């Protein structure tokens, strides 16, 4: 007996060098190494060092060459303007909405509609928006009677020079995203009592929220706000569909350079990618400075004792805008469905002449391959990410406390660094490894973006599981792995499946990673839809985009329903 106990002690000491302890390190390598290496492999050519093209003259020549390209300066302005406008509006609207409605039934109801909205790929929403807003779109068709028009009006409603339609398309997803992030933060702050106190002192709904709750939740949503800023400055697919095309936003400008037939254009392309990276870093810095100034003004406002209005105006404004955003998103989905089923649809008619399944049956074969690629890539990227995330969290449980704020920042790196700034370099790295244009490279490139989301959505529920369940299971004689598989995983089935659905939606919506890591050999529904969006038959485009929007939506709904069904006989799990 004594000997067997001694063996147990030894085996425990040995287990310290197990795979589990390597999990965080392995995870970091998997999702940060390609980003860091990719950035390096972009910066070097930007500075003139590109052995593949026999260029070794290090200096600022490529940067100067980039700025001398026609449209580069205008494209830079457009990127900065739209980025700040979209972020400021999205942030303002999300705050206005949360402040006016937190704890109301309307808020919970809107939340239920917002989460499936987030599952839809951004480019799908943008294309649907074109179907709505374009001069020949559904809105003008519905209004044609009232306006007395029989032909599409000669106005610019999409791809306008100011980028306003692009900003609107970004808002459709950025507002729901920031609102849901705020909701999650509110859960940690428990604002009900401070709100009640402030309102008892005579502050209005909005005023009380801004003064007592906002300062506490802002630190919790700071990184998501930065992610929105970085995203709206660097997104490619939405910009291809909605932003002006000549000159385009910086990221599209750079993509064109990389895709140019003249390989030497890769050097100014890399320089442009570096500029984009610096612009995003600088903008986040500028936003941070803005935060400090607002905080200083804010302090003066709290101490002034001014109560502010009752908040009725801001309340109706918030409700109106949120309903409008929801309406636009769901009509976008609906108009796609209508077009895909349209027999033919002449301009001023409000609805198609007749409905038919012809477009679907004729293109179901062609759409099958990209749908398959989307599905396999999404599922594989989710499974790889989930395995890594679970190992990291389990390791955290067994090792005790870990510095969480540092991990959080690391997780956001792939979301903050513009994709355009490192994916070119990642492609170079993947070519070296011989995995470009294959499944491994494609799935790996998707894991970079799926993993942070899976981690972020699973970490909180995981960490808040009552640790006494684990302790009592151990004391009942269950090994740590038995506890992991029989207690933790089943109890966390619901958040796990939601995390998987979010991860799948992220993967299904990715455009640039597929383009670069797939090296043109893989097409997903998203890449096909974005390509088709530049012209061609609306009915065929509608088939692709509808499927693109619905596939992650279906996965998301399944993720909500399935755990409930599996635990249908367990009231304690509902």
């Amino acid at each position, binding site marked *: *007996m*004594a000997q*067997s*106990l001694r063996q*147990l*002690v030894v085996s*425990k000491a040995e287990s310290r060098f197990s795979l589990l302890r390597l999990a965080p390190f392995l995870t970091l390598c998997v999702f940060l190494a390609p980003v860091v290496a990719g950035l390096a492999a972009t910066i070097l050519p930007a500075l003139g060092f590109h052995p593949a093209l026999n260029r070794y003259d290090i200096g600022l020549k490529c940067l100067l060459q980039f700025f001398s390209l026609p449209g580069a300066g205008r494209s830079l302005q457009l990127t900065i303007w739209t980025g700040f406008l979209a972020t400021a509006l999205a942030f303002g609207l999300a705050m206005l909405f949360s402040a006016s409605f937190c704890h109301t039934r309307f808020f919970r109801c809107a939340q239920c509609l917002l989460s499936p909205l987030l599952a839809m790929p951004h480019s799908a929403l943008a294309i649907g928006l074109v179907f709505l807003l374009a001069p020949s779109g559904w809105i003008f068709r519905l209004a044609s009677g009232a306006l007395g028009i029989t032909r599409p009006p000669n106005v610019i409603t999409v791809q306008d020079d100011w980028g306003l339609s692009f900003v609107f398309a970004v808002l459709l997803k950025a507002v729901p995203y920031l609102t849901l992030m705020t909701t999650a933060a509110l859960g940690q702050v428990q604002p009900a009592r401070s709100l009640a106190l402030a309102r008892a002192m005579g502050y209005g709904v909005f005023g009380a929220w801004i003064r007592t709750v906002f300062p506490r939740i802002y630190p919790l949503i700071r990184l998501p706000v930065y992610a929105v800023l970085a995203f709206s400055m660097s997104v490619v697919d939405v910009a291809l569909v909605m932003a002006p095309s000549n000159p385009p936003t910086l990221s599209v400008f750079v993509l064109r350079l990389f895709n140019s037939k003249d390989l030497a254009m890769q050097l100014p392309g890399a320089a442009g990618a570096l500029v984009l990276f610096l612009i995003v870093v600088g903008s986040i810095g500028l936003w941070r400075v803005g935060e400090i100034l607002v905080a200083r003004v804010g302090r003066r406002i709290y101490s002034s004792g001014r109560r502010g209005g009752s908040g009725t105006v801001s309340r109706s404004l918030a409700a109106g805008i949120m309903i409008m955003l929801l309406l636009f998103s769901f009509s976008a989905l609906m108009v796609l469905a209508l077009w895909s089923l349209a027999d033919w649809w002449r301009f001023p008619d409000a609805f198609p002449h007749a409905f038919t399944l012809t477009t679907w049956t004729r293109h179901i074969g062609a759409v099958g391959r990209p749908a398959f690629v989307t599905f396999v890539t999404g599922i594989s990227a989710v499974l790889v990410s989930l395995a890594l995330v679970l190992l990291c969290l389990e390791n955290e449980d067994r*090792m*005790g*406390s870990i510095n969480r704020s540092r991990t959080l920042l690391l997780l956001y790196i792939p979301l903050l660094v513009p994709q355009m700034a490192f994916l070119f370099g990642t492609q170079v790295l993947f070519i070296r490894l011989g995995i470009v244009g294959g499944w491994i490279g494609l799935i790996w490139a998707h894991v970079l973006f799926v993993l942070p989301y899976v981690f972020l959505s699973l970490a909180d529920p995981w960490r808040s599981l*009552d640790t*006494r*369940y*684990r*302790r*009592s*299971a*151990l*004391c*009942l*004689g*269950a*090994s*740590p792995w038995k506890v992991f598989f*029989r*207690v933790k995983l*089943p*109890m966390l*089935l619901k958040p796990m499946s939601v995390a998987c659905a979010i991860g799948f939606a992220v993967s299904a919506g990715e455009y640039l990673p597929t383009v670069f890591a797939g090296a043109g050999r893989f097409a997903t529904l998203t890449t096909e839809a974005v390509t088709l969006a530049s012209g061609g038959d609306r009915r065929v485009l509608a088939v692709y985009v509808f499927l693109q929007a619905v596939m992650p939506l279906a996965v998301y709904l399944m993720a909500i329903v399935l755990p409930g069904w599996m*635990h249908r*006989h*367990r*009231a*304690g*799990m509902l």
Partner: protein
Amino acid sequence: MCSGGSPVKGPKRIAMESNNGCMLRLEDVSLTLQGHVLIPPTSLEVRAGEVITIMGPSGSGKSSLLDFICGTLSRAFKAGGRILLDGLEITRVAPEKRGIGILFQDDLLFPHMSVGENLLFALPRNNGDRGQRRAVADAALAEAGLDGFFDRDPATLSGGQRARTAVMRTLLSHPRALLLDEPFSKLDAHTKGEFRSFVFSHARMRGLPTLLVTHDPEDARAAGGPVTTIGSEWQED
């Protein structure tokens, strides 16, 4: 030599045998949190079938002491001293190999398992085939006055029924010592008295050395054993 606990080769044991001769000993056990001494070096001996009560206010480190004995103490604490179970040191043994059962304030029945599955989760492997294991679980339920509850969802049970299930679950894992972390504090007055005698009689019947942690003097009286007080110097906060 005590039987039960970690799997040993030999003839199959009956599920609920008594456990004569086990003894739990703490030697100079101390607990420190961030340089703050919660428990100064303390020695304690709990004989088979005996219940020792540790009293102390919340925050005095009495629950952490039980965590240390179980092997699930958070790394934030620093612990010293040795724990011996029947003369063998278990201070560094993995929690699942120690053979120490614990009951918490909440029943902590796993909500995704049925009542019976909760019991089978605890029952060690070497207890026969599926049918025999099921029979052991059914017998345990009958012993707790829960005949025919095997397939029930734990969420549908009353507080007292859940508490008794939790006790049977712990006993089925064949512990060689029992720790009670205020298991009575959340029950209503009527259930409490009944449940106290249920727990103590089962612990005595199996000859388990039992350590009870509580801040309710009534619990200590019902346990009927010696009482130790810790952390009295922190009583004011």
